[in-house]
Protein backbone atom coordinates (compact mmCIF):
# COMPACT_ATOMS: atom_id res chain seq x y z
CA UNK A 1 0.00 0.00 0.00
CA UNK A 2 1.08 3.52 -0.81
CA UNK A 3 -0.13 5.62 2.12
CA UNK A 4 -0.54 9.35 1.85
CA UNK A 5 -2.14 12.21 3.64
CA UNK A 6 -5.28 13.00 1.69
CA UNK A 7 -5.00 15.90 -0.71
CA UNK A 8 -8.14 17.16 -2.37
CA UNK A 9 -9.06 20.49 -4.00
CA UNK A 10 -11.50 21.16 -1.16
CA UNK A 11 -10.99 23.64 1.62
CA UNK A 12 -10.36 22.22 5.09
CA UNK A 13 -13.97 22.68 6.17
CA UNK A 14 -15.23 20.45 3.39
CA UNK A 15 -12.58 17.74 3.34
CA UNK A 16 -13.88 14.39 4.52
CA UNK A 17 -10.78 12.23 4.09
CA UNK A 18 -7.81 12.13 6.50
CA UNK A 19 -5.68 9.44 4.88
CA UNK A 20 -5.75 7.51 1.62
CA UNK A 21 -4.01 4.27 0.69
CA UNK A 22 -3.55 3.22 -2.93
CA UNK A 23 -3.49 -0.55 -3.36
CA UNK A 24 -0.44 -1.88 -5.14
CA UNK A 25 -2.52 -4.20 -7.29
CA UNK A 26 -5.70 -3.36 -9.12
CA UNK A 27 -7.38 -0.04 -9.45
CA UNK A 28 -8.50 0.38 -5.87
CA UNK A 29 -7.72 2.15 -2.65
CA UNK A 30 -9.04 2.89 0.82
CA UNK A 31 -9.62 6.07 2.78
CA UNK A 32 -10.14 6.98 6.42
CA UNK A 33 -11.95 9.89 8.02
CA UNK A 34 -12.30 10.32 11.76
CA UNK A 35 -15.58 11.92 12.86
CA UNK A 36 -14.38 14.34 15.50
CA UNK A 37 -17.29 15.26 17.77
CA UNK A 38 -16.61 18.97 17.12
CA UNK A 39 -17.27 18.70 13.36
CA UNK A 40 -19.60 21.50 12.26
CA UNK A 41 -22.50 19.42 11.00
CA UNK A 42 -23.06 17.45 14.20
CA UNK A 43 -24.43 20.45 16.07
CA UNK A 44 -27.53 20.78 13.88
CA UNK A 45 -27.86 17.27 12.43
CA UNK A 46 -29.54 16.66 14.79
CA UNK A 47 -29.61 18.73 18.01
CA UNK A 48 -29.12 16.23 20.81
CA UNK A 49 -28.88 13.31 18.38
CA UNK A 50 -25.80 13.89 16.22
CA UNK A 51 -25.40 11.80 13.04
CA UNK A 52 -23.29 12.32 9.93
CA UNK A 53 -25.68 13.38 7.13
CA UNK A 54 -26.07 10.82 4.35
CA UNK A 55 -25.26 13.54 1.83
CA UNK A 56 -21.85 13.94 3.48
CA UNK A 57 -21.28 10.16 3.48
CA UNK A 58 -21.77 10.44 -0.27
CA UNK A 59 -19.39 13.42 -0.43
CA UNK A 60 -16.74 11.55 1.56
CA UNK A 61 -17.04 8.55 -0.77
CA UNK A 62 -16.84 10.85 -3.81
CA UNK A 63 -13.67 12.46 -2.42
CA UNK A 64 -12.13 8.99 -1.95
CA UNK A 65 -13.04 8.14 -5.55
CA UNK A 66 -11.52 11.41 -6.72
CA UNK A 67 -8.26 10.77 -4.90
CA UNK A 68 -8.10 7.27 -6.42
CA UNK A 69 -8.72 8.59 -9.95
CA UNK A 70 -6.09 11.28 -9.59
CA UNK A 71 -3.64 8.84 -8.01
CA UNK A 72 -4.02 6.52 -11.00
CA UNK A 73 -3.89 9.40 -13.49
CA UNK A 74 -0.72 11.23 -12.61
CA UNK A 75 1.72 12.59 -10.08
CA UNK A 76 0.36 13.13 -6.58
CA UNK A 77 1.42 16.76 -6.76
CA UNK A 78 -1.39 17.47 -9.24
CA UNK A 79 -4.13 16.21 -6.94
CA UNK A 80 -4.89 19.37 -4.96
CA UNK A 81 -5.36 21.50 -8.09
CA UNK A 82 -7.56 19.15 -10.08
CA UNK A 83 -11.27 19.55 -9.36
CA UNK A 84 -13.58 16.66 -10.16
CA UNK A 85 -17.36 16.68 -10.09
CA UNK A 86 -20.04 14.14 -9.18
CA UNK A 87 -21.89 13.31 -12.40
CA UNK A 88 -23.99 10.35 -11.33
CA UNK A 89 -24.99 8.23 -8.35
CA UNK A 90 -26.45 4.74 -8.76
CA UNK A 91 -27.55 1.98 -6.42
CA UNK A 92 -27.06 4.09 -3.31
CA UNK A 93 -27.82 2.39 0.00
CA UNK A 94 -27.44 3.86 3.48
CA UNK A 95 -27.21 0.84 5.73
CA UNK A 96 -26.47 2.37 9.12
CA UNK A 97 -25.55 5.53 11.03
CA UNK A 98 -22.19 7.22 11.56
CA UNK A 99 -21.80 8.81 14.99
CA UNK A 100 -19.36 11.32 16.50
CA UNK A 101 -16.15 9.43 17.37
CA UNK A 102 -16.56 6.84 14.60
CA UNK A 103 -13.93 6.40 11.92
CA UNK A 104 -15.19 6.00 8.35
CA UNK A 105 -13.25 3.47 6.30
CA UNK A 106 -14.11 3.76 2.60
CA UNK A 107 -12.98 1.24 0.01
CA UNK A 108 -13.12 2.41 -3.58
CA UNK A 109 -12.55 0.62 -6.87
CA UNK A 110 -12.35 2.10 -10.36
CA UNK A 111 -14.84 0.17 -12.52
CA UNK A 112 -14.51 2.03 -15.80
CA UNK A 113 -12.70 5.10 -17.07
CA UNK A 114 -14.22 6.56 -20.19
CA UNK A 115 -13.13 9.88 -21.65
CA UNK A 116 -13.84 12.60 -19.11
CA UNK A 117 -15.89 10.22 -16.95
CA UNK A 118 -15.01 7.45 -14.51
CA UNK A 119 -17.25 5.11 -12.57
CA UNK A 120 -16.42 3.71 -9.13
CA UNK A 121 -17.83 1.23 -6.63
CA UNK A 122 -17.59 2.61 -3.10
CA UNK A 123 -18.34 1.11 0.29
CA UNK A 124 -17.98 2.77 3.68
CA UNK A 125 -17.81 1.01 7.05
CA UNK A 126 -17.47 1.93 10.69
CA UNK A 127 -16.63 -0.36 13.61
CA UNK A 128 -20.27 -1.48 13.47
CA UNK A 129 -20.03 -2.68 9.86
CA UNK A 130 -20.88 -1.43 6.36
CA UNK A 131 -23.02 1.71 6.50
CA UNK A 132 -22.92 3.03 2.92
CA UNK A 133 -22.61 1.58 -0.56
CA UNK A 134 -22.98 3.14 -4.00
CA UNK A 135 -21.75 3.34 -7.57
CA UNK A 136 -20.49 6.82 -8.36
CA UNK A 137 -19.57 8.52 -11.59
CA UNK A 138 -17.14 11.44 -11.51
CA UNK A 139 -16.44 13.89 -14.32
CA UNK A 140 -13.45 16.03 -15.12
CA UNK A 141 -15.82 18.62 -16.60
CA UNK A 142 -18.55 20.65 -14.96
CA UNK A 143 -21.59 20.07 -17.14
CA UNK A 144 -23.30 23.28 -18.07
Amino acid sequence: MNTSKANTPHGPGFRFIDHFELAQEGQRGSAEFHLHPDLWFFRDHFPGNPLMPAALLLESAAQAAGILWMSLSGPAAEIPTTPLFVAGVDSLRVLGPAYPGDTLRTSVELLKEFGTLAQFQVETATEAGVIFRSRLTLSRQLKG
Partner: protein
Amino acid sequence: MDSTKEVSIDLLKGLLVENTMIKVDPETINEETILFGEEGIGLDSLDALQMIVAVEKRYGIEIKDPTMARDALQSLGVLRDWIQTRLTSTSVS
Protein backbone atom coordinates in the same frame (compact mmCIF):
# COMPACT_ATOMS: atom_id res chain seq x y z
CA MET B 1 -26.47 -20.16 -27.87
CA ASP B 2 -25.70 -19.26 -24.26
CA SER B 3 -28.74 -17.23 -23.11
CA THR B 4 -26.47 -14.59 -21.57
CA LYS B 5 -25.00 -14.04 -25.07
CA GLU B 6 -28.36 -13.54 -26.76
CA VAL B 7 -28.45 -10.27 -28.67
CA SER B 8 -31.84 -8.86 -29.59
CA ILE B 9 -33.38 -5.41 -29.91
CA ASP B 10 -35.76 -6.15 -27.02
CA LEU B 11 -32.89 -7.22 -24.78
CA LEU B 12 -30.78 -4.19 -25.66
CA LYS B 13 -33.79 -1.93 -25.15
CA GLY B 14 -34.11 -3.47 -21.68
CA LEU B 15 -30.49 -2.57 -20.93
CA LEU B 16 -31.18 0.94 -22.19
CA VAL B 17 -34.22 1.37 -19.95
CA GLU B 18 -32.45 -0.07 -16.90
CA ASN B 19 -29.23 1.90 -17.25
CA THR B 20 -29.98 5.27 -18.81
CA MET B 21 -32.22 8.25 -18.18
CA ILE B 22 -34.33 8.02 -21.32
CA LYS B 23 -36.95 10.74 -21.55
CA VAL B 24 -39.18 9.11 -24.16
CA ASP B 25 -41.62 6.21 -24.09
CA PRO B 26 -39.51 3.05 -24.65
CA GLU B 27 -42.25 1.80 -26.99
CA THR B 28 -41.28 4.54 -29.43
CA ILE B 29 -37.68 3.31 -29.65
CA ASN B 30 -36.92 0.96 -32.53
CA GLU B 31 -33.68 -0.41 -33.91
CA GLU B 32 -33.08 2.66 -36.06
CA THR B 33 -33.77 5.31 -33.42
CA ILE B 34 -30.75 7.56 -32.98
CA LEU B 35 -29.80 7.42 -29.31
CA PHE B 36 -27.47 10.35 -28.70
CA GLY B 37 -27.40 14.02 -29.53
CA GLU B 38 -30.05 16.48 -30.59
CA GLU B 39 -31.15 14.46 -33.61
CA GLY B 40 -31.72 11.45 -31.35
CA ILE B 41 -33.53 10.84 -28.08
CA GLY B 42 -31.04 12.97 -26.18
CA LEU B 43 -28.88 10.50 -24.28
CA ASP B 44 -25.61 12.00 -23.03
CA SER B 45 -22.08 10.89 -22.18
CA LEU B 46 -23.10 9.60 -18.74
CA ASP B 47 -25.79 7.46 -20.37
CA ALA B 48 -23.13 6.19 -22.79
CA LEU B 49 -20.90 5.17 -19.89
CA GLN B 50 -23.81 3.37 -18.20
CA MET B 51 -24.62 1.47 -21.40
CA ILE B 52 -20.98 0.57 -21.97
CA VAL B 53 -20.64 -0.86 -18.47
CA ALA B 54 -23.90 -2.80 -18.94
CA VAL B 55 -22.83 -4.21 -22.33
CA GLU B 56 -19.37 -5.13 -21.02
CA LYS B 57 -20.89 -6.91 -18.02
CA ARG B 58 -23.45 -8.85 -20.06
CA TYR B 59 -21.36 -9.77 -23.08
CA GLY B 60 -17.78 -9.61 -21.83
CA ILE B 61 -16.81 -7.21 -24.60
CA GLU B 62 -14.50 -4.36 -23.67
CA ILE B 63 -15.31 -0.98 -25.17
CA LYS B 64 -12.11 0.95 -24.77
CA ASP B 65 -12.50 4.44 -26.05
CA PRO B 66 -15.14 7.09 -26.79
CA THR B 67 -14.76 6.81 -30.58
CA MET B 68 -15.46 3.08 -30.46
CA ALA B 69 -18.46 3.75 -28.20
CA ARG B 70 -19.82 6.45 -30.48
CA ASP B 71 -19.69 3.99 -33.39
CA ALA B 72 -21.32 1.18 -31.43
CA LEU B 73 -24.05 3.18 -29.72
CA GLN B 74 -25.53 5.02 -32.70
CA SER B 75 -28.75 3.00 -32.46
CA LEU B 76 -29.92 -0.32 -31.00
CA GLY B 77 -29.63 -1.93 -34.44
CA VAL B 78 -26.03 -0.80 -34.84
CA LEU B 79 -25.25 -1.93 -31.28
CA ARG B 80 -26.80 -5.37 -31.92
CA ASP B 81 -24.71 -5.84 -35.07
CA TRP B 82 -21.58 -4.53 -33.34
CA ILE B 83 -21.97 -6.98 -30.43
CA GLN B 84 -22.76 -9.92 -32.74
CA THR B 85 -19.66 -9.22 -34.83
CA ARG B 86 -17.45 -9.22 -31.75
CA LEU B 87 -19.05 -12.30 -30.23
CA THR B 88 -18.57 -14.14 -33.52
CA SER B 89 -14.93 -13.12 -33.85
CA THR B 90 -14.32 -14.15 -30.23
CA SER B 91 -15.86 -17.59 -30.71
CA VAL B 92 -13.88 -18.19 -33.93
CA SER B 93 -10.49 -17.10 -32.62
